[in-house]
């Protein structure tokens, strides 16, 4: 529905009741990322811990969701169990269109259910139901049951947690429709703290479209751009794993807990290898014709002579990095098997792989023993990692419970902080150099997608902290606007400012269309203000020694340059997140 405000459903799990609220601010925060922060400021409690039952778990979409292709993502905003500060995580799947077809701009969940429960939301439906019998089930098993319990096949989105979320792990993801995830920063742990096993969003409503022919014509044009350009070959064919060999060649691919940045063994887990030998098919997020989701298979023999089962596993660049190169596993099927275990546990695959890589090196160095790890972790040996993933999801002992809060937290307790590959959270798969390390370590959601630091590293050999930070700040503002619409970032090469403005204008969002740059900066500042208000101190950010030892195609990392970047970026963050003056525009759209 096109409107000048936000229509928000707020559900209190304690009572099982909800309210529909009209929230102002469309022309200042847009939706998505901006709306998430806006709603956290309205409903959140910066001074209370992440698992306080009154803290909100927010899901927000944008003004273009459903109206144009690849406007297909949802932003999840919450106070993170990882650092007890404000954070965001983004996911594709069906949830964005399902929320749109519930006629909601956002779903805000507060309170704690008295028993393990499911929340089902539809355009004309709200129920919180007892689901104690689902508690403890892994992601795959609970999915099968939920599909029978709630109607709407094809037009419903199922968000669910596994054992990791139930255990309050800071690495617990929220699984979305089996193959997508609100992966990072522990959103699954927030659901677990609320006794919320699953959220079912049933998109049942229908809206009139603008009567002018301009909308249909523009849709056609955007659709053709999405399907006729190199988008299809880049993201559909080999998909994101194509970066593996490219980054390996550049000495930018983390291997074995970042002890190396390149290894010829990459050919065993290259994009071509996965596509040629494991790819079953592609699938897509609702509203996206690109279909970037790659589904591979694992076939395992469970008994002699010919007793097999098979499983379908979604693969991408980051899971191959974290379960493959980071652990030294170079067999494609072993990598897929590990990803499958991670999926079942409901863990974020990047965090789990990087944390286990640290544990492996700690075991190598004698800092950890099998008393802690429960399995003999050795780089390249897949079987013990399968057990370790289960232990991590189950928080099987004190060590795994602590590791589930973050590798650096475990390192601070056991030792080995120098080689914990943590940049705000467990690193993403880009050992590209100083700018990326600085960007992820300090970034708003500690994601490689906060800004294009990894790309900057790959094209800039100069060392100008002012220029690099200017790029990070500018790029982040543009991405913040895009993730407030809420676009898949794969489409950012097509949704350039002119086209975005045209899309917004066609739907009647003239103010958003006319002032994208200003609004992007407003959203950027709002998010930083929110993060800082929950206790973020950029000066306390650590970039462990391991990152200073990396050698890329440009040579060894320059620690002095990285320090200068950090100092400059910290000042920029503090400046962006400074408290509002009375003269500044307020997020709710009011101006003094």
């Amino acid at each position, binding site marked *: 529905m096109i409107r000048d405000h936000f229509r928000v459903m707020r559900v209190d799990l304690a009572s099982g009741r909800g309210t529909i609220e009209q929230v102002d601010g469309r022309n200042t925060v847009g939706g998505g990322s901006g709306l998430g922060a806006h709603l956290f400021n309205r409903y959140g409690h910066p001074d209370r811990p992440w698992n306080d039952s009154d803290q909100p778990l927010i899901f927000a979409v944008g003004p273009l969701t*459903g*109206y144009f*292709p690849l406007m297909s993502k949802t932003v999840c905003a919450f106070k993170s169990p990882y650092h007890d500060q404000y954070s965001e995580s983004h996911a594709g799947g069906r949830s964005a*269109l399902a929320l*749109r*077809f519930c006629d909601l701009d956002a779903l805000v969940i507060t309170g704690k259910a008295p028993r393990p429960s499911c929340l089902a939301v539809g355009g*004309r439906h709200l129920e919180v139901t007892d689901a104690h019998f689902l508690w403890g089930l892994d992601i795959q098993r609970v*999915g*099968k049951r939920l*599909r029978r319990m709630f109607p709407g*096949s*094809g*037009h419903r989105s199922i968000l669910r947690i596994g054992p990791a979320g139930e255990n309050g792990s800071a690495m617990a993801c929220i699984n979305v*429709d*089996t*193959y997508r995830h609100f992966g990072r920063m522990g959103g699954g742990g927030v659901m677990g703290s609320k006794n919320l096993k699953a959220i079912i969003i049933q*998109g*049942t*409503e*229908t*809206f*009139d*479209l603008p*009567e002018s022919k301009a909308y*249909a014509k523009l*849709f056609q044009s955007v*659709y053709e751009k999405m*399907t006729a350009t190199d988008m*299809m070959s880049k993201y559909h064919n080999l998909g994101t794993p194509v970066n593996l060999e490219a980054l390996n060649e550049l000495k930018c691919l983390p291997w074995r807990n970042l002890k190396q940045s390149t290894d010829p063994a990459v050919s065993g887990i290259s994009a071509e290898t996965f596509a040629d030998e494991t790819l079953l*098919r*592609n*699938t*897509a*997020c*609702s*509203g*996206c*014709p*690109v*279909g970037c*989701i790659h*589904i591979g298979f694992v076939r395992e023999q469970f008994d002699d002579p010919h007793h097999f089962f098979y499983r*379908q596993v979604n693969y991408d660049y980051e899971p191959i990095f974290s379960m493959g190169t980071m652990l030294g596993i170079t067999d494609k099927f072993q990598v897929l098997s590990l990803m499958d275990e991670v999926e079942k546990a409901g863990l974020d695959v990047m965090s789990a792989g990087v944390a286990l890589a640290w544990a492996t090196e700690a075991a190598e160095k004698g800092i950890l023993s099998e008393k802690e790890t429960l399995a003999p972790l050795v780089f390249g040996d897949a079987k013990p990692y399968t057990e370790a993933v289960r232990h991590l999801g189950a928080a099987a002992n004190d060590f795994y419970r602590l590791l589930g809060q973050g590798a650096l937290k475990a390192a601070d307790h056991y030792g080995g902080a120098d080689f914990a590959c943590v940049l705000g959270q467990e690193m993403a798969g880009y050992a590209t150099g100083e700018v990326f390390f600085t960007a992820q370590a300090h970034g708003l959601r500690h994601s490689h997608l906060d800004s294009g630091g990894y790309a900057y590293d790959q094209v800039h050999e100069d060392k100008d902290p002012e220029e690099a930070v200017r790029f990070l700040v500018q790029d982040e503002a543009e991405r913040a606007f895009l993730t407030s619409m809420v676009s898949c970032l794969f489409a950012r090469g097509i949704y350039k400012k002119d086209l975005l403005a045209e899309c917004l204008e066609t739907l009647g969002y003239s103010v958003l269309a006319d002032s994208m740059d200003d609004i992007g900066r407003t959203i950027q500042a709002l998010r930083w203000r929110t993060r800082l208000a929950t206790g973020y101190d950029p000066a306390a950010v650590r970039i462990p020694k391991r990152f200073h030892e990396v050698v890329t195609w440009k040579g060894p990392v320059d620690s002095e340059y990285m320090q200068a970047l950090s100092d400059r970026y910290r000042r920029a963050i503090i400046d962006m997140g400074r408290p509002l003056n009375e003269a500044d525009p307020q997020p709710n759209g009011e101006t003094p």
Partner: protein
Amino acid sequence: MKILTTPRMERCIGCNSCSLACARQVYKKLSWLTAGIRIISSGGMSTGFEATICLACNPAPCAEACPTGAFSQRRGGGVIVKKKLCIRCGECAAACPVDAVYLDHDIEPFVCIHCGRCVPFCPHDCLEMRPSPREDHAGPEMRSRAKEVTP
């Protein structure tokens, strides 16, 4: 007369572009339900997708069930829909053996009219307009095809 067919659904990626295109172009709606073609997963995302569409019955039980003539028999199978005649009784949906008629909250029926406007929006070529095998009076195209398959 041609009808919409879904001969290559094993290629479907579940993007819903067809449903959204139908709702947008034919019914002027933003919807994945008020459309002549609707996509469902056939048991979770891991098992692929199915399309719910009109199979172009001839005679069409939905047309026979319609008490006001809002649904009438289309030559070659399927129905011609005249919304102005519809009294929202829902009998068409009840009569359809394959759930091809979707009723919205106001009992307004939505069904495929075999116009083919969804076809170009399928990125994997799952959909195709083909001559109807249920023509009242087979045209030259069908007669030609019949010869090809007759021993």
